[in-house]
């Protein structure tokens, strides 16, 4: 956690005798105080920016953050407005995704990073014991895999124990071409979700509206939930892990959907008809 890394760092620097710069290090790691009253969006040439009172929000590299669509910009301002006394950057996943998307320039590294998870996909790696868990995995993960096979016309099968699942070249090629059709920003959201759920199949099920975020997180944590049901729940570990995964996965799903959709609406009044 933040506080523990604070203390470890302080101790190291104190013992080394660098007392002049340890306070700077502590301030860097400590949570920043909320220095603005309200966050609002502003229109830029290529999209929307965020203004924290009168300061423009900039990416870590120093350039002004430019968000391509309005829904996402509004969601990011909401994230900043939710912060109370300190700015907790680890609870602002949408902003982190925007920074990552601004820094990435090409799609290929993101796509290859996503595909590298396919050969070790969670729902394709079944365990061999205990018997209850094996049955639970067949019952819960089976439908998700069947949906994936039908949706993308590919053939994948699960493996048991320590053997890696076999994903053939044809499948990898098809998924590579499919992923390359998406926008670079969408791919950043998808890559982040795949890293959280440790599963390409579950992430694609979420963005295709086949599974809700809660269901996908539950399937990804199937073994943990089985053990919790059997041996008991430790709130400060299991619940924190579950809610953190849900928060970040939901943020990735929203990010993907908002970048993928561009909708305009025309409202008809009785005079126009």
């Amino acid at each position, binding site marked *: *956690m933040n*506080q*523990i890394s604070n203390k470890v760092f302080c101790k190291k620097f104190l013992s080394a005798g660098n007392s002049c710069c340890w306070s700077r290090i502590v301030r860097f790691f400590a949570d920043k105080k909320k220095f603005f009253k*309200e966050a*609002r*969006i502003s229109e830029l040439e290529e999209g929307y920016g965020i203004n924290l009172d009168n300061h423009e929000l900039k990416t870590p590299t120093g350039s002004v953050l430019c968000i391509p669509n*309005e*829904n996402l910009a*509004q*969601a990011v*301002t*909401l994230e900043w*407005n*939710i912060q*109370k006394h300190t700015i907790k950057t680890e*609870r602002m996943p949408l902003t982190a995704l925007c920074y990552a998307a601004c820094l990435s320039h090409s799609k290929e590294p993101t796509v290859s990073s996503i595909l590298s998870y396919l050969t070790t996909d969670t729902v394709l790696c079944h365990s061999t014991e205990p018997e209850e868990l094996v049955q639970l995995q067949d019952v819960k993960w089976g439908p998700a895999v069947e949906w994936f096979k039908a949706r993308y016309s590919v053939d994948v099968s699960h493996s048991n124990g320590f053997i890696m699942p076999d994903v053939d070249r044809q499948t990898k090629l098809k998924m590579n071409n499919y992923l390359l059709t998406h926008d670079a920003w969408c791919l950043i959201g998808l890559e982040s979700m795949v890293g959280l759920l440790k599963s390409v199949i579950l992430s694609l099920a979420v963005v295709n*509206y086949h599974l*809700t*975020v*809660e269901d996908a997180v539950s399937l990804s944590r199937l073994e943990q939930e089985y053990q919790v049901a059997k041996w008991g729940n430790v*709130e*400060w570990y299991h*619940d*924190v892990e579950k*809610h*953190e995964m*849900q*928060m970040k996965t*939901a*943020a990735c*799903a*929203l990010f993907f*959907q908002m970048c993928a*959709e561009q*909708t305009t*609406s025309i*409202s008809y009044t009785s005079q126009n008809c």
Partner: protein
Amino acid sequence: MSQLKTFHAILRELKLAGINSGTPGYVHLMKLYKTNQVTAGRYCRDQTAADYNALTFLTYLQSTRKLNNLCNYYNRGENSIKKAAERVGLRIPTQYSEHPPNENGSK
């Protein structure tokens, strides 16, 4: 979960997070709901896309709030050095204070 229930749950989460009805994010959310009122499948996208997005947004807000509450509850103890010392039976030494102690020596 029905659409109206999801909508009310989102509004409740925003209120708990301190987002008032005047803020731009709130206004934008109401605008989105109004424009999509009649349009479940009208704009050539998935029938249930808007419902799913609303549910995802609700999950995001709820999980953030629950995570914040859990972390505030369980991480509170780490900040207090006095409590950590008392836990192992020690007392921190008397700290310098601008207000001098009483004349008879008690704090």
